[in-house]
């Protein structure tokens, strides 16, 4: 189990391979990766603010909850903060289990909670100026199924 909150870019593929290699008894690996969308070229960049200390606590709590709900061999959360360019990877999660249903459910659960319960805020920079990304009702709704 690992949680990393960092300003530096990460190598999604290298993380996927390293994760899959250390859980090879698990059989099923699911990963998610979030990428900065360029919105048809209008987005110039993004800045992610976070709450150091609380971020790590919140992500640990979310991961603990996932481990209680599903049989997981391992889980990984990597989330960047600071400035990001279009096309850059914002974050990733990975889950491993003997059964694919557990790996899928846990990854989706981690994403749903991370999206609305971990203290990150996104600001977009475009030709029209700056704006804070607003939370979407659909993301809050997504929590209700768990």
């Amino acid at each position, binding site marked *: 189990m690992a949680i990393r909150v960092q300003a530096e870019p990460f190598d999604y593929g290298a993380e996927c391979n390293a994760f899959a290699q250390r859980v090879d008894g698990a059989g099923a690996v699911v990963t998610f990766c*979030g990428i900065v969308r360029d919105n048809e070229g209008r987005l110039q960049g993004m800045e992610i*603010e*976070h*709450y150091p*200390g*609380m971020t790590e*606590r*919140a992500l640990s709590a979310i991961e603990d909850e996932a481990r209680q709900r599903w049989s997981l061999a391992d889980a990984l959360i990597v*989330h960047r903060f600071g400035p990001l360019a279009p096309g850059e990877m*914002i*974050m990733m999660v990975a889950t491993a289990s003997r059964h694919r249903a557990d790996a899928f459910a846990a990854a989706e659960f981690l*994403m749903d909670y*991370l*999206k*609305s*319960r*971990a*203290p*990150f*805020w*996104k*600001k977009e920079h475009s030709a029209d100026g700056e704006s*804070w*990304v*607003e*939370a979407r009702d659909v993301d*809050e709704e997504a929590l209700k199924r768990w």
Partner: protein
Amino acid sequence: MSVTILYFAWLRERIGLPRETVETSATTVTELVEELRTREERYALAFSDLKAVRVALDQELSDFDAPLAGVREVAFFPPMTGG
């Protein structure tokens, strides 16, 4: 009592600082917000719509009616947009 208050995202921008330490006799988050609102226009503006504000007490998400007794760090911020 003395409390450290942190502001994030547009709350930080509207209030104009990321953190401050205040002396307060507020017993709940709601009372603390009332105190802040009366201080200056920028606080009144930042806290004008509490439906758009979330609060964490000592780095745990909490509610506006939660008691402040023993709390050392209060953080205000908009709904989170991670992922």
